[in-house]
């Protein structure tokens, strides 16, 4: 489903150059739940942003679903993210003036789904993450864990091919973190491909496969025996 070929990412600032990813090669299959781990500065989030088409690699190519994404225009990449990818950010990234339902509906509206249908789909997604009774609450009226669940509902409401999660439990206590991981597990069991960056080895155990990065290179790629 995803083929990463020799990608490299270098940041330049004046005469300074810093290579964050070096010759990364990776294949991710449909339905996989993959954890990207490594110490701070290893390039985990940078790799996730390249895979999620939020950034361009300096070299190499990323093929998703048979499409060489480096050949897509800016607008085509935006549309690709809209239709095929879902994102869960570390700090939830909800729009403060939109209710839970509205936050989830926004990508559906963008796809041209009519209002009544998008409201139904949003409510369904929110119910699936246990927020059926908080549909019309604003983010400021929700706890951190609830906000992250809205963020997950937003990411899955339009049935994306791949769900990306950037340290989704970093701002949550262990109980809420466990709730979030169980939601991911349930989604994966239903066939959702998930790629998650995490610092925490105990949450990596929820995944089927763990890729370890160090200094921008993959140092290990391990199947998880517990799953």
């Amino acid at each position: 489903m995803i083929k990463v070929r020799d990608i490299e990412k270098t940041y330049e600032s004046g005469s300074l150059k810093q290579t964050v990813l070096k010759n990364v090669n990776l294949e991710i299959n449909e339905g996989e739940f993959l954890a990207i781990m490594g110490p701070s500065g290893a390039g985990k989030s940078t790799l996730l942003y390249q895979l999620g088409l939020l950034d361009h690699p300096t070299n190499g190519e990323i093929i998703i679903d048979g499409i060489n994404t480096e050949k897509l225009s800016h607008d085509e990449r935006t549309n690709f993210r809209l239709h095929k990818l879902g994102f869960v950010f570390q700090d939830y990234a909800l729009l403060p003036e939109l209710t839970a339902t509205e936050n989830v509906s926004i990508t559906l509206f963008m796809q041209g789904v009519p209002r009544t249908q998008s409201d139904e789909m949003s409510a369904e997604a929110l119910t699936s993450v246990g927020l059926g009774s908080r549909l019309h609450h604003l983010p400021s009226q929700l706890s951190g864990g609830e906000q992250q669940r809205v963020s997950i509902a937003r990411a899955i409401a339009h049935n994306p091919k791949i769900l990306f999660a950037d340290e989704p439990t970093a701002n949550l206590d262990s109980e809420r973190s466990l709730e979030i991981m169980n939601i991911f597990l349930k989604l994966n069991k239903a066939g959702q491909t998930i790629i998650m960056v995490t610092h925490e080895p105990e949450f990596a155990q929820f995944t089927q496969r763990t890729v370890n990065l160090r200094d921008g290179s993959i140092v290990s790629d391990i199947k998880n025996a517990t799953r």
Partner: protein
Amino acid sequence: MQKSGYTPTKTGSSFLVGFFLASRNIRRGNPWTNVLIVFIMVFTFLNLVVVSGILVGLVEGVSQSIGDHFMGDIIISNLKQREYIEQSGFVIGIISAQSDVLGYTPRYISGGTIEPELKKLRKPSELPEKVSALFAGINPEQENAVASLSDLLVEGSYLEPDDYDQVMVGALLLKEYAGFESEAFPVLSDVSVGSKIRITVNGNVRDVVVKGILRSKVDEIDRRVFFVDSQLRGLIGRFDYNVDEIAIRLKEDADPVKVKEAILAGGAGEYAKVQTLQDAEPKFVKDIKNTFAILGAIISSIGLVVASITIFIVIFINAITRRKFIGILKGIGVHSKAIEFAYIIQSMFYALMGTVIGSALVFLVLKPYIDVHPINFPFSDGILVATPEGTLVRIGILFLATLLAGYIPARMVVKQNTLDAILGR
């Protein structure tokens, strides 16, 4: 390698999402910010419409006063090389036959001098004050019906048809009202209602009593001495009843140009010059009107630029502080156009609110009030000139300026790198 197969995002979806984001941002954003921006827009609208409207209205007030109290809607005067309107009876017959004429007032006009009573001289060697003036002989009732002269009385009372040796004097001939004294415009001192003044006209000298004093903001009235027509006709020896000018008042919706053409078609043009108020308006008044309109436009433009910059700054700060959210929206696939639409729609909302409230203030409060209570400028009773057509043009300009002021900052922020915006870099 296969095609991506996803549905391209349509502009319609971008607009709907933009509208959705804008409406939620306005409804659930900081209400005081909304109030402040709408307040600015209202004042921008007032600046655009009222400032230029009052500047134009200041001069328009002069024209209106000339029309109301002197020329009427149409003024008929003597031809060049003729002393008066020959065949005045024939001309008046043509005027009377016009169905759109509400009334008319023939006037006898003659130059002469006025001076105070001789007994008021302080020393035998002192020369009397002598002031040149125009004498107007009027039919008091007809004149009042057309020119509402009685409204201009500041002292005394209005002439009656059978008054004899009694006059009404324009305020600019009297020191007390003129407020100045110069070689070029001499004035009489110590003259008030009941005073006797000596008039000299056509070689005839008479002592008459001041019955009333008129003050307007029309020099032609304020420099005249008004007699009952029968007496002045005798003094100037105009026994053929030919008059010097005729002011005509038309019915409310009548077209002065059409009536003028009808009077000319009746043959009046052979004996008199027929002009609408607009034709007869002195060139300097037209020039001042244009000058004030330009001044108004300049002042309004400055106001518009200031308001555009204010909107720009407000939208820019709003967009900058929401840069992360803009990045997230782009990250999850919301098209840049939708985000730009959201800011444009917000700006348009502020412009709309400013326009609606501003229009209500102008057309329901300010204009009706100023029409009834004109602004007392030294040389005119200023009105507020705000036509629906002119206001619509200004509204268009305001919307265009606001659209740009909303779009440019939104575009600047939306164009930034998506990941940098999300990460706050």
